[in-house]
């Protein structure tokens, strides 16, 4: 994995994390936004400009790929590189979470 990609995406913004997480299933941008809203009890709203920009950037960097267009909406899914980044991020967050609870956890 390129160092640049790691530097840009780890640690990830909350928006970035949820988008990548949701795209483990094929989905278009608006549905990603809706799902994130549900998952976070309405607390995290990803606005269209931010959604559009994040998807374009992640596509350009090869974390997600365009699958097909359905009724003018672009459907994306995660790539192998995206999965690797997501896994690294999940481990980091898990460590952060465990340590924040005062449990000793050094897992990488």
């Amino acid at each position, binding site marked *: 994995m390129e160092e640049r990609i790691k530097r840009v995406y780890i640690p990830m913004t909350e928006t970035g994390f949820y988008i990548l997480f949701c795209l483990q299933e094929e989905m278009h941008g608006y549905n990603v936004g809706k799902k994130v809203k549900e998952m976070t009890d309405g607390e995290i709203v990803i606005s269209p*400009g931010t959604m559009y920009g994040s998807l374009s950037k992640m596509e350009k960097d090869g974390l997600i790929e365009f699958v097909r267009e359905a009724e003018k909406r672009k459907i994306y899914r995660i790539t192998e590189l995206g999965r690797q980044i997501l896994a690294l991020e999940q481990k980091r967050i898990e460590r952060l979470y465990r340590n924040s609870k005062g449990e000793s956890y050094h897992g990488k």
Partner: protein
Amino acid sequence: MGNKRKKESHLFMLTDYEKEEEFLHRRHREGWRLLKVTLPGFYTFEKCEPEDVVYRLDFNPQNPGEKQSYLQMYADYGWEYVQDMNDYSYFRKKAEQVEENELEIFSDAESRIEMLKRIFVKRMLPLMLIFAVYMMTQLPYLLFGNVSSGVREGLLGVMAAIVILYVYIFLHCGIGFYQLKKKYRRGKEL
């Protein structure tokens, strides 16, 4: 047709898009709905019921093939697309019974700063380049070229006017870029 119309001109510079949004919001609340922008700074309004409708401008020039899905995304989020002008896309949405976070087109500081960067690279840099080329080609000619003193003075006068105009634009936008970036960064820390 039918509805009464009015034209109005109001100049907003590259970094004044938030002021422009507020201007259009105010007009709509006064009962004047934006019909079209014919040139940057030239607006046509149509009489309507006064309403709380927010306007948002996005600067995100795409390839023609991308435009449809871009607009569809905004439509899904409940934004009505008005038009494009100078690569700014104009959107609006009724504010009534809508949560505040759904009246924004950006939800984090990063994406707001990204838009500033796009404006800087695609609008501000070309302006600076044109200015630099103009100065480099005209100045030597004026200072050392074989022209009569009357012509020289005339051309120097024109150049002085252009320089003053450019300096004003650069200062205005430079300060604008700086302040917006600072504001977005601060928002992030809160």
